[in-house]
């Protein structure tokens, strides 16, 4: 089976979870089938265990390329709509399957699907409706809706996203197959952040948020919970890792709630530095308003951190050993954060059981096998 995978980014040149998911999925698939992974521009990526096809030979800088969301420049739109043509210039075989990721590869997948007369798949890691908390950019929404309807099959990463595809995009349920992400459970190298370690030595506890500072990820709800948490546990600091358009708003919200001194904004961090912060924290909170899957909770578990997620975080749909809250329910969020910080036995029991369950349920080879059986089903 020959699969042409239409990609957008790969680590370390990635804007978030998408590039990571693509990398591990392609790596596992490549063990079992013939896979070619395309990137629209030339990037100095690390060596990959699978074939990568750049449609450009020269390195190129594009405004807004790694902010997958905003702003969408004309250059980016141009790239999206000429991507298929560029692929055809250098890819000379006939694939059995075209597999793209999210809206920016959707036009290419559709055009190639029609060109080769084969099945096209769009792997939906998130929809514009989810990324913007139901306030979609009209152009992106239009592209998604049009091409998602035209492409033969959709692969949302959770049933939450599947629901949205049916309701907000009017997609026929029969062409949707949910495909949960896997996770690479490895011990990461990490670099301890001294300022956090010093706080810990002084008896502070650390609550961690990791994610883009945007509406979708709900960082404002966690900030609103801080005054409540401080009433019970005054020696608690809140670390926000990530950057995003909501940053100024969060700073003024913290000021208004008189909790500025309790918050540390670290901006976007990668790899060792990020994992170091996971190591120092006591609990990870994921208050997402809508998160189709959510890699961050699994990263938390991989770094031995108990996690607390909103009911609208997709990964929670697959786990039983998981503590959840409604993202808007500030009091309940605070109650559970305090519970995990205060009650040692609960924290330990919960962490070990949720880690064990997540390791059993999320693994890339399992996801790859599931995907191959979906391919086979659709080829018949």
């Amino acid at each position, binding site marked *: 089976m020959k699969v042409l995978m239409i990609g957008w980014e790969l680590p370390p040149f990635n804007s978030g979870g998408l590039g990571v998911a693509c990398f591990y999925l392609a790596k596992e698939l490549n063990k079992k089938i013939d896979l070619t992974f395309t990137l629209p521009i030339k990037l100095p990526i690390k060596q990959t265990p699978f074939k990568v096809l750049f449609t450009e030979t020269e390195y190129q800088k594009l405004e807004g390329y790694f902010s997958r969301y905003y702003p969408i420049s004309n250059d980016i739109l141009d790239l999206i709509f000429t991507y298929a043509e560029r692929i055809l210039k250098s890819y000379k075989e006939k694939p059995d399957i075209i597999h793209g990721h999210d809206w920016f590869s959707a036009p290419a997948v559709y055009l190639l699907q029609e060109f080769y007369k084969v099945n096209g798949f769009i792997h939906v890691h998130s929809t514009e409706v989810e990324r913007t908390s139901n306030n979609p950019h009209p152009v992106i929404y239009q592209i998604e809706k049009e091409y998602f309807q035209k492409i033969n099959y959709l692969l949302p990463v959770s049933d939450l996203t599947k629901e949205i595809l049916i309701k907000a995009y009017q997609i026929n349920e029969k062409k949707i197959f949910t495909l949960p992400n896997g996770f690479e459970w490895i011990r990461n190298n990490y670099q301890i952040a001294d300022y956090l370690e010093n706080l810990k030595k002084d008896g502070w506890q650390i609550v961690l948020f990791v994610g883009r500072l945007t509406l979708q990820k709900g960082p404002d709800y966690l900030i609103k919970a801080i005054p409540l948490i401080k009433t019970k546990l005054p020696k608690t600091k809140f670390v926000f890792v990530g950057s995003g358009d909501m940053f100024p708003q969060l700073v003024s919200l913290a000021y208004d709630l008189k909790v500025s001194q309790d918050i540390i904004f670290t901006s976007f961090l990668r790899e060792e530095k990020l994992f170091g912060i996971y190591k120092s924290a006591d609990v990870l909170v994921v208050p997402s308003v809508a998160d189709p899957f959510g890699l961050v909770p699994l990263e938390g578990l991989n770094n031995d951190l108990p996690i607390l997620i909103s009911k609208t975080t997709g990964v929670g749909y697959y786990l*039983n*050993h998981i503590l959840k809250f409604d993202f808007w329910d500030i009091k309940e969020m605070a*109650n559970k954060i*305090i*519970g995990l910080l205060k*009650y040692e*036995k*609960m924290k330990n*029991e919960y962490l070990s059981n949720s880690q*064990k369950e997540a390791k059993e349920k999320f693994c890339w080879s399992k996801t790859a096998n599931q995907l191959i059986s979906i391919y086979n089903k659709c080829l018949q």
Partner: protein
Amino acid sequence: MPSIVFYFKVHQPERLKHFTVFDIGQDQDYFDDERNKFYLDRIVDKCYIPTLNLIKDLIKETNGKFKVNFGATGIFFDQLKKWHPEVIELFKQLSQKNSVEFIGETYYHSLSCLFSEKEFKEQVILHKNLVKKLFNQQPKVFSNTELIYFNEIANYLQDLGFKAILTEGVDRILGWRSPNFIYSDPEKKIKILLRNYKLSDDMSFRFSAKWWSEWPLTADKFANWLEAYNGNGEVINLFMDFETFGEHQWPETGIFEFLKNLPFEVFKRKDLEFSLASEVIKKYPSRGTFSSQEPITWADTERDLTAWLGNEMQKESLELLFSIEKQIPFYLKETWRKLQTADHFYYMCTKWFADGDVHKYFNPYDNPYDAYLNFRNIIEDLKLRLKPNVKIYIRN
């Protein structure tokens, strides 16, 4: 002639309100009356009223030869008194016949026997008094919460005047021996009636299981199985939750028809009879000793305490609860006792939970950690109420 001993455990816990850390010290109530009434309404309708009426009819139609034993907790009767006194009336009507016996229980379906002999005995006496008051019966046979048994219990029960206890016919203790005889504890203080788990589970668990080779189970077939024990058994103990009828097994499964036909199928066969627990312990001698140092129960395949004391959260919660026993003032005693109900700890059970195979029956929590957090917050609040110099309100 084997005697069939039907024993139905009847219990409903008082489930807790959602209690956050912010409610600690705010003088909040612990129990969720609305939810408890909601569940009780449902089960009264689906199980208690139709089944009690059916049993009443069967006793009448068989001239009192159909007999059953009830182990109903005090906390269950307390809730009936508040919301469904008509069900108590039904129990009372039944108790006037000589075909119904009430078995001793802990009043609050408590795990106290594992932590405090004093508290255990007090609760058993409370329950005895309640049975005396409601039904004018003096329980002589005891059945512990979840049929917990270990040798030490025999001493407690002898002190309390009981003659026998019901527990599980655990294979690892019985070995080659049969549960269909009466046994006694090693010191011969009390007799022991052992649940025939195969036949009991055929009725209460496998009855509607279409994967089961014996499905559908008819009264005729079941009576044949009972008859087969003729000559190699003296008692056939069928112990199960009363909620088997109409709730665990819905009416559509045919469970009511089964119960309706069973006495007549049994009487078609010569050498079978229904008996009260106190009758069989008089009729048959002990045929051996049944000894367990470790607590056994009727739960899961392990038949042990792991559903209530299997993880650290459960152990800590129970230890914390009993660590304040001596400080509990009289006006908090009932509250403290209601917190001992085994169900609160069962909700914290984490084994099998990843498979989603949890016993979700009337469980108010999404997961064991929510159950622990809620309970723990309540314990923290209760501890505050014990502190001197704290203004304490006595509830009406």
